[in-house]
């Protein structure tokens, strides 16, 4: 419990920053919706002038962009990108931070098992993600209610928004796995930015080319907000993939971390 609380305190500032930024971003984007909705015909006309591949790449659906949930689904892809970076950074730094800050010797010579350390840190990370998502959801729902002309489709809003948590879990588990393999990660942000953007580019390619196989390679395609707002359901195969990958990566991290040598400073 002491390690868990210590970790929470350590991530307090960054959690607040991330939550406020995500909430602020969605509020900014959604506050533009009324203006857009008023002149939706002109807007769609302009968009229609773009090559189809560009519209696809950026997940713009001409049929639904004028609807509240349609516009929200489009904007949400950027939120997901930011959320992915937060989660990947979190996963990468959880265990590697102790080596980087040279506190590993302090922590690991205490009467505590490696499993207990991973569990405590993982619980803290999960708490951080839950807080971020709760903050985001609240802000997102409030702004949608505010700008929506009709009643907001709560189910769709929730179905789309909660996928940020799922994608974040994937990135956090991935970051954790990478961090236990690496001997030392000097700087977390370049690694997490690089990885998440790489997946985002695969995502764009996959959308633009309609390549079904590419979709499996990037978590950003697992819960496609456009599809969700049109079909009101998740794709089973990707739900299963997520449900398999996250526990597997976490389990592997436990196993590897238990065998890992903690090197001197």
């Amino acid at each position, binding site marked *: 419990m002491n390690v868990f609380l210590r970790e929470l305190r350590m991530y307090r500032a960054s959690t607040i920053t991330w939550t406020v930024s995500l909430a602020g971003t969605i509020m900014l984007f959604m506050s533009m919706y009324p203006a857009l909705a008023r002149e939706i015909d002109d807007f769609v006309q302009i968009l229609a002038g773009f090559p189809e591949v560009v519209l696809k790449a950026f997940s713009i659906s001409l049929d639904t962009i004028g609807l509240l949930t349609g516009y929200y689904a489009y904007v949400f892809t950027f939120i997901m990108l930011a959320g992915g970076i937060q989660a990947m950074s979190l996963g990468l730094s959880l265990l590697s931070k102790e080596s980087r800050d040279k506190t590993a010797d*302090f922590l*690991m010579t205490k009467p505590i098992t490696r499993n207990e350390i991973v569990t405590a840190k993982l619980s803290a990370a999960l708490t951080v993600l839950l807080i971020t998502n709760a903050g985001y959801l609240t802000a997102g729902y409030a702004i949608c209610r505010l700008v929506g002309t009709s009643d907001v489709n709560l189910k769709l809003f929730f179905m789309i928004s909660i996928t940020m948590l799922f994608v974040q879990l994937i990135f956090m588990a991935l970051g954790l796995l990478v961090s236990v393999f690496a001997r030392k990660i000097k700087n977390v942000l370049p690694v997490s930015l690089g990885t998440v953007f790489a997946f985002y580019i695969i995502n764009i390619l996959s959308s633009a080319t309609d390549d079904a196989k590419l979709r499996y390679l990037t978590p950003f395609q697992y819960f496609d907000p456009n599809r969700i707002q049109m079909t009101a359901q998740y794709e089973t195969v990707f739900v299963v993939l997520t449900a398999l990958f996250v526990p597997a990566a976490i389990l592997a991290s436990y196993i590897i971390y238990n065998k890992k040598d903690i*090197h001197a400073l």
Partner: protein
Amino acid sequence: MNVIEIDHLTKYYGKTRGIIDVSFSVEGGEIFGFIGPNGAGKSTTIRTLLGLIYPTSGSAKIFGKDCIAHGPEIRRQIGYLPSEVFYYDGMKVGDLLRYSASFYRKDCSKRIQELAEVLDLDLTRKIDDLSYGNKKKVGIVQGLLHEPKLIILDEPTGGLDPLMQQKFFDLLLEENKKGATVLLSSHILSEVQRLCDRVAIIKDGRIVKVEKISTLKESNYKRFKCEFTAMPDANMFSIDGVENLTIDGNVASFLFRGDVNKVVRMLATLDITDIWAADPDLEEIFMHYYEKEA
């Protein structure tokens, strides 16, 4: 009873040598020195004992229990002070010590106060703002606050002024009197000589010797220094037992181990203006070990 038993411990980092076939035991209640040049494998041995790294082969037991399998349980009774101390950013000294104490199932607040007072450490300051020596003090308190039965120190005195060193040694001796066993790794021979009952000497990853300090000191080594009216032929000194012979003008000095009469008889044939004979200090004996193996 042996508090530490190291049994043929070997550690390779990939292909790089850490330690090879290290075996020695530390008895309950003793202050055991672990000495060797930089890179000899002192820290590798200690880190294995603490379960920070895993041995390639061999094993080590602390309190009779395997230090890997029963690591967390064993560490309940171990206090560790690393050679370099870095602690979480933005924490105050008191916060860190309370965090450290929270890992042990007992109330350590009184002990923290005591130790901080002895070492003259301000608990309200931020660790980031502390000098190297003061950070070291935080490390000492952190290592001793739960009154461990085994204290492991890895080159602990760097950064402490002589007065603080003395206080620190007094603390260690006090803990030792209360029953704590101490394993002190160092390359500073005088502090080992002052504190320890026995030492293990490690070089290039292997234990060269495990010996009582008192035995080392009285291992019949004598340091001779003679001034002659005229320097005799260097061959005169090639008696069994003469080592480290240096000749500087009319002065010859050497270490001798064996029957002193042989040297006296040899010297009696020469014309001497002055002579010194003394026990060598530990430094000389250790240098001797290091060099012989090189």
